[in-house]
């Protein structure tokens, strides 16, 4: 399948994806978070490209290109456009504080590895470790959504989770069948657009997109 050298490169890149997620959690303001998300997506598309190169599965390249274009550039531009239009200032840090949230993310990673430790060895070159990474990226995505206040950051949390999915699909089975991959990518795009439109409406009515204002519906 793939030579040991190639497996090391791929595992190295997966580890880099995990580190980027941690960086994203530690950011205070919005624009760096979006930028880190863009880098992560680009990294993932490179990873997909390399896997396609090493294993000769050329149809992965299509998905790699789609990811690069969509998640690398299109969605971050859309988010930046939203931020400019809505003139959002700095996002105050989450109620948990950076150090504690990092610690919590560490625990989530531990849990992810514990859960996936006993699964059978994936034949693909990326191996079981990358499954652990993808599961932890998903869990951290949910964590971001659960702690950050700004609506835009929650959208980013959602997109990070989706990146985790992409990595999992890539590492386990060289990606899902093509139609499914395309469908998933298309859905992510539509979700981002819909979220954008909703953000505009919310901003008009609430003139802020801080979720604490949106707690009128209770009990």
């Amino acid at each position, binding site marked *: 399948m793939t030579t040991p050298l190639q497996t090391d490169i791929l595992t190295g890149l997966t580890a880099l994806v995990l580190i980027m997620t941690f960086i994203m959690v530690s950011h205070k303001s919005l624009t760096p978070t979006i930028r880190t998300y863009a880098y992560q997506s680009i990294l993932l598309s490179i990873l997909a490209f390399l896997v396609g190169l090493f294993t000769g599965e050329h149809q992965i390249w299509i998905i790699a290109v789609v990811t690069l274009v969509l998640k690398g550039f299109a969605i971050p531009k859309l988010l930046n456009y939203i931020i400019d239009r809505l003139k959002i200032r700095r996002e105050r840090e989450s109620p948990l504080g950076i150090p504690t949230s990092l610690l919590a993310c560490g625990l989530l990673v531990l849990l992810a590895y514990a859960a996936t430790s006993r699964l059978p060895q994936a034949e693909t070159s990326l191996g079981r470790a990358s499954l652990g990474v993808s599961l932890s990226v998903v869990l951290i995505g*949910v964590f971001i959504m659960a702690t950050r206040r700004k609506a835009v950051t929650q959208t980013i949390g959602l997109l990070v989770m989706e990146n985790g999915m992409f990595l999992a699909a890539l590492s386990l089975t060289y990606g899902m069948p093509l139609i499914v991959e395309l469908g998933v990518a298309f859905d992510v795009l539509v979700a981002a657009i819909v979220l954008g439109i909703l953000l505009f409406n919310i901003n008009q009515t609430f003139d802020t997109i801080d979720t604490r204002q949106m707690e009128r519906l209770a*009990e």
Partner: protein
Amino acid sequence: MTDILYYLLAAPALTAIAAGLTKSQRFQEMANLVGASVTLVLGAIVTYAVVTTGPQSAAGSFLYADALSALLILVVSLIGFACAMYSIGYMRHEVHEDHFPAARLRLYYVLFHAFVFTMLLVAVSNNLGIMWISIEGTTLASAFLVGFYRQETSLEAAWKYLIIGSVGITLALFGTILVYFSAVHVLGPASGALEWTTLIQIAGQLDPLVLKIAFVFVLIGYGTKAGLAPMHTWLPDAHSQAPTPVSAMLSAVLLNCALYGILRFHAIVSPTLGSFSNTLLILFGLVSLGIAVPFVLIAKDYKRLLAYSSVEHVGIIALAIGIGTPLALFGGLLHIFNHAIAKSLMFFVAGNLNAKYGTRRIDAIRGALLALPATGIILLAGFLAITGSPPFSVFVSEFTILNAGFASGHYVAVTLYLLFLLLIFAGFLMSMSRMAFGKPPEGMPRREVSPWNTAAMVFLLAFVVVMGVYLPAFFVDLLHQAGAVIAVVK
């Protein structure tokens, strides 16, 4: 007969397009009504075909409809038709009260039928990936329907609905990926490993550990969309802020689509995992039943009350499927149908009350029995039906589930089930008697809101009353075949 599935999917799509093209409200309503009735007829034909000649498939096993999906198709088309009929009267009244500009009515009908299209797609897609995409589609289509009124509360509800829904669906995707991985592990990569038909054959050989984690993700993911507690938090906001026909569709049908997803995965994992998935379903079912109790006991807004009642009934269905004996499955699947009918009936009544009294607060409504003659009686009949009183259909399914629970020895679960049903009955009774009885406010004319609304309500009431006494043989066969699909090996 194989391309019947195409026509089924085409009907709502064409209606959506037709409604989108014209500006005149009258033509939109006509298109909506004709489209919905065509969908209903096609749904009935598909169901009949499936029951008599077995599973239908089209486009080379890309579209596949067995008894379980036939049940979902029947529910989607039937409730879709009733809601379409109800929307005409309701939306006219809303436009008349200028809650929103008439122009937006076009958007409503387009999104409504797109919503029906995506739900039918869920029912017929054989590939679990495509099923995931169509469930994602339902969320996106219904997001704008929830936030239709563009007020602060409805936007907040739409935002929560979309965000929590997306989180759930993404988790479900992870589960689908794991199932795909275990299938590839057994079959090798390029052989349609995500097709339901292939997966169910090799269900016995899949790796139990992977399936365990996969089912956890699927249960939490699709459970969020199905309203299983504690992931149900978006449901009361979304169902109470959406326009009534939409909240009826959400409560009666969308929850069942997500449940349908869970049932598919339950069928795949149960041969290898044994009772792991059953216990989880029973646990989540009881938690949903329990969580609904306090919110029904102290209810301030009757649409939220109905939303929590949906959480309760989803819990009952999960409990029934969890028990897993043939009788329990029969009861659970019958309950999916009965709940869909009774819940949409109650939402129509709620719509009429909202149109008449202009408020959703329970203590602001008195003497509905006198102010709205037909709706008042249906309010009481619906209340009795939704809480499982005998002469109506919901009693039959709840009693079957009770018996199955006792026969299979789940004493603790069944006692809790009875206790929660009792508390919910008490909560409902207090709200309903406060609204139905007493004198209506002076000067309130004593007539119905609109003939369309009453027609839709009577159409559903007929089902609730008849199904309480007599189950047509054709329908019983459908339920048994669907039950067999889930408990294939047991």
